[in-house]
């Protein structure tokens, strides 16, 4: 069970995320919707601590994740894989190595570290990567460079990387915002498959209500950092949506399309060293 308690993040005077409380049971697929700037990404990034919360706690199986440091934090990040809008693969490395990055924290001791740095992975680890790739029909591309793949393929490679972490939770930050409709479908299908077959909890940000309705067990709607709705897709009626955002469902979808074509997420100017 993943629990967010009063999670808040302020950037200067701006409250990006405002006392969010959520309880997510294991194996659920949750879609977080809202416009650009509603705080969806910040919320997700606080769960694996790529962004530090200003207030509040994140609990997983009763463990306070917000208090973790060093190797314990890295262990939590391994349990809680992340998928990014821009896939964040290493373009110049082959697909196989990109997927094996998911194993890095499963290689204990000095020997593990040294062999990792030399890119010396075992045959079992390579087989594991290939099996993951094969689930999404990508095994044949294993030795190609990541930048030779289409966006949809790259995102599925990123899902394979996440799977190799053997995570309990997957956080997907706008996984399909940079993809065309057909590729978006294959990626959402892949996430759904992972959620159903592997029992991994999926928490994903989405721009489109349609997608969230189609794929998620539960929808959380955010506006100005606050959770305005939390329930099943059926409960989020057009009337409810108008109450929250002041627009009809069609208008909401139009705005979402504009938002996604507008801009990719800004890149950090400096690596957060946590």
């Amino acid at each position, binding site marked *: 069970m993943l629990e967010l308690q009063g999670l808040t993040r302020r950037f200067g005077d701006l409250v990006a995320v405002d006392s969010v409380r959520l309880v997510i049971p294991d194996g659920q697929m949750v879609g977080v919707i809202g416009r650009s700037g509603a705080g969806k990404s910040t919320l997700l990034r606080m769960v694996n601590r790529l962004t530090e919360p200003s207030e509040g706690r994140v609990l997983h199986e009763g463990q306070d994740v917000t208090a973790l440091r060093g190797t314990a934090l*890295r262990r939590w990040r391994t349990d809680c894989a992340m998928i*990014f809008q821009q896939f964040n693969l290493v373009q*110049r490395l082959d697909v196989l190595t990109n997927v094996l990055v998911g194993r*890095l924290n499963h290689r204990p001791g000095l020997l593990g570290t040294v062999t990792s740095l030399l890119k010396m992975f075992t045959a079992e680890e390579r087989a594991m990567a290939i099996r993951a790739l094969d689930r999404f029909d990508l095994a044949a591309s294993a030795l190609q460079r990541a930048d030779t793949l289409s966006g949809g393929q790259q995102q599925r490679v990123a899902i394979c990387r996440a799977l190799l*972490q053997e995570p309990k939770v997957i956080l997907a930050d706008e996984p399909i915002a940079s993809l065309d409709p057909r590729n978006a479908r294959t990626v959402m299908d892949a996430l759904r498959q992972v959620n159903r077959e592997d029992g991994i909890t999926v928490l994903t940000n989405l721009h489109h209500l349609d997608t969230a309705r189609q794929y998620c067990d539960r929808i959380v709607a955010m506006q100005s950092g606050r959770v305005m709705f939390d329930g099943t897709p059926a409960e989020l009626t057009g009337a409810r949506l108008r109450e929250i955002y002041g627009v009809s469902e069609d208008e909401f979808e139009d705005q979402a399309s504009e938002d996604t074509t507008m801009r990719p997420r800004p890149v950090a*100017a400096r690596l957060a060293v946590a």
Partner: protein
Amino acid sequence: MSTPALAAGALPGGEAVRAAEQAWLRRRRGRRLSFTVWGALFLLALGAASEIGEVSLARLAAGLPMAADYIGRTIPTLRWASLGEDLAEWMWGLDAWVLLLLDTILIAYTGTVLGAAAALLLSFPAASTLAPRWAVGASRRVLELARTVPTLVFALIFVYAFGLGPLAGVMAIALHSMGALGKLFAEVHENADLRPVEAVRAAGGSWGEAMRFGVLPQSLPGLLSFGLLRFEINVREASVLGIVGAGGIGEELYLSVRQFSYPDISAILLLLLATVTAIDLLCAALRRRVIGAENLRAA
């Protein structure tokens, strides 16, 4: 051709042309003024520097024939009729010189490889986008120190420490290269896309693993290119290290200068020139391949 006074008043086109012409004239006046002021300051600085640096035309005039004379003495006598013997006499030490040249190249090679390895390790903490400020500060200071001290000075110290011979030269080149390359490498890392780095961190990877898998693959072509450029420079540096007894061809060159064996000087310099040119061409070709291959893949 137009005189400004005439142009400003008499040009057709009305107010817009007149105003633009006035602005243009004002700007030209401003530029001429600043050109005069900066020009005068430049000449003044040049004059002062020559005075302090004892650059005088009279001494230059007196010294030039001496230099020409020196160069003239180093030119060997080569007669068409006995070209073979004359060349053989000129290049009498060829075997030893070629070995010494190989020595020189090996000193440069080993020094560059060791220096680049050390530079690579220090370049990650020195990259301001990747490391905490204290680490950036500390590693940059170390790199600065290493590249501020000239190779020749390091060589003097290491000859004192390790004795005469190539080891001192290798150490000197490695240390100076570490400083010079470390800074350049860090700048290459700073241009790396941070998104893959964040992905490695988000997968539970350590900082070191994020550098290895997120940054290094992106920086590699840049590092290779700078490394090859440094090797070129180091071959030239290594050729003078012998002067302080740190191995290579330099010692032989210095000896012939001290003993006034004029034709030997030109023979060694010619061989050195050929070697350095060959290395330069080789490195340039390799660098083109590294960069060219990269552009091809990016396309």
